[in-house]
């Protein structure tokens, strides 16, 4: 289960086989009124920790949801672990999802279930037939679930209802659920967007630490550039559904380039482009 921890950053020099390959991905919503992704292409080698940054609405979530078939593209190819995600359905899609963990911004755990039940959900793909309650899972899986909870520091909460936990703890349960899948890739969609900065750091550490230990490739969308730079091997910046930045994270990283991704922000934090025609003083009257 655990391969030796590799702390070697996978930058440009060391190429490993690609596990994710996205080509000219395009996604329209509302019959073309909204273009969420506009010709996105990139490859991710195995073991890389890739962080995707960008404004809200820049297409980060939509991009990640394409990678395990939670959303279908309007056009383009998505290849994950050798599977054509766009064509995959039914069994092949489920077997792909077994290898791809997903950590959601809203956690998406079942609050009424206990922590261990939520983590055991990650093993459903290995089992046949529906399960209700931890006792319907074999003891070996229950042990593994507790081990995963222990890795995120919540083994003592195993039999507690998940909605009695704090937000950061709930997200760590969700991470444990992903790890329970023994995935080869983890997709994390703004995993700390609803958490405070300190907790965010702890959650990101837990996520990246475990993934590095298990040699899991991570694609993580983030708002906080500083959290991204701590762990990431590589940064991709999205703006209006297009890749505007793709750079390894090393000593040469230009912070100015990174901030360019957020170019549309004015000092008040509002998007300014749409209202450019109306001068500010006209709003005062």
């Amino acid at each position: 289960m655990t391969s030796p921890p590799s702390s070697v950053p996978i930058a440009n020099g060391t190429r490993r086989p690609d596990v994710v390959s996205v080509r000219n991905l395009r996604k329209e919503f509302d019959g073309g009124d909204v273009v969420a992704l506009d010709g996105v292409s990139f490859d991710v080698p195995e073991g890389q920790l890739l962080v995707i940054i960008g404004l809200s609405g820049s297409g980060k979530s939509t991009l990640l949801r394409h990678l395990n078939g939670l959303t279908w593209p309007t056009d383009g190819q998505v290849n994950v672990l050798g599977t054509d995600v766009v064509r995959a359905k039914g069994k092949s899609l489920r077997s792909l999802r077994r290898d791809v963990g997903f950590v959601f911004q809203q956690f998406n755990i079942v609050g009424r279930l206990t922590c261990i039940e939520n983590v055991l959900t990650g093993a459903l793909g290995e089992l046949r037939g529906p399960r209700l309650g931890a006792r319907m899972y074999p003891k070996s899986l229950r042990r593994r679930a507790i081990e995963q909870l222990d890795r995120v520091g919540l083994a003592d909460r195993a039999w507690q209802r998940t909605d009695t936990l704090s937000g950061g703890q709930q997200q760590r349960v969700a991470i444990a659920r992903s790890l329970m899948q023994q995935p080869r890739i983890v997709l994390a969609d703004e995993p700390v967007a609803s958490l405070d900065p300190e907790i965010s750091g702890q959650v990101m550490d837990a996520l990246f630490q475990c993934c590095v230990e298990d040699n899991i490739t991570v694609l993580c969308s983030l708002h906080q550039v500083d959290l991204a730079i701590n762990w990431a091997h590589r940064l991709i910046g999205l703006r209006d559904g297009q890749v505007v930045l793709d750079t390894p994270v090393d000593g040469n990283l230009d912070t100015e380039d990174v901030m360019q991704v957020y170019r549309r922000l004015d000092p008040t934090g509002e998007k300014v482009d749409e209202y450019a025609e109306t001068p500010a003083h006209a709003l005062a009257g």
Partner: protein
Amino acid sequence: MSLLEEPSIDTPAPQARPTADQVPLSPPWTRRRITLTLLACGFLAGSIWGLRRVEMTLFPLIEGWPETWDLLQRMWPPFIPAEDRSEVLQLLADTFFMAFLATVIGVALSIPLGLLASRNVVSNPIIRTAAMLFIAFARAVPSLILALVFVRVFGIGPIAGILAIGLHSIGFCGKLFSAAADNIELGPRDGVASTGASRGQELLTGVWSQMVPSVIATSLYRVEINFREGTLIGLVGGGGIGLYIRGVQGNLRYQELLGVTVVIIVAVIVMELLSQAARRTILGPTDPLANSVRLRAAGGWHLRVLAHRVAVEASGASSYVGYRE
């Protein structure tokens, strides 16, 4: 599957922003607002028209007051003869178990039907509509009519009443169960699906586990309703306390009629207390109906406090820690 898609991303802002003095001070007359206003006017007009109708029929009631008074006098005081008392208690117990069994039957049939009728479970609109129609049919046919049919088949007795009330329960439970399945959060379900779970696994872990509190609350509430229905079902031969009512009413024994009515009222209140205590014990603070207007209307605060105390005692202490931060 398309449910897993994000509904939409942020809608783009309007092209030109109106100035502050261009923004109207009254809400705009959207199509929806016009519809709602017309509906409100319709209700008002209907009420006025209804009032005019009722006024015409109210006069006979006033004119016939002496007869009403006479009837009330013959009813007073409520009384059940000693030789009938054990029979009434037996029939009351029958009624309780009839309500219980009818709810078990109704809920067992309503769970699959409710799931079949839910947009979140079945994507085929034909199956969904068929399940919905069956549920609506069960709701539309009164249990007394159903009991008349079943009494023909099974003869006078509790079985006819149980089946009649049970089938009629589907109309209520099936509807609420399908609503519960429709109203689950889609996020946790996505979470389960994203682990590579099969459709059945996704339904049980992602959908059903979110429905459970609502199913329990609905079923307990239905036991109460079925008890009330069970008190009447005997009038048409469906068993239970209604059989006694039928007997005394047929023999014009008005004091007994009022007496058994009082017994039923007390029994119904006790049932509600028991049901609320059970709800509190099972669901605790997760009860979706906990603070609903219905409970307030049904119990009043003192009953709820009493029920709560019973529940706390029954659940073996106030060891329950606050469930949400």
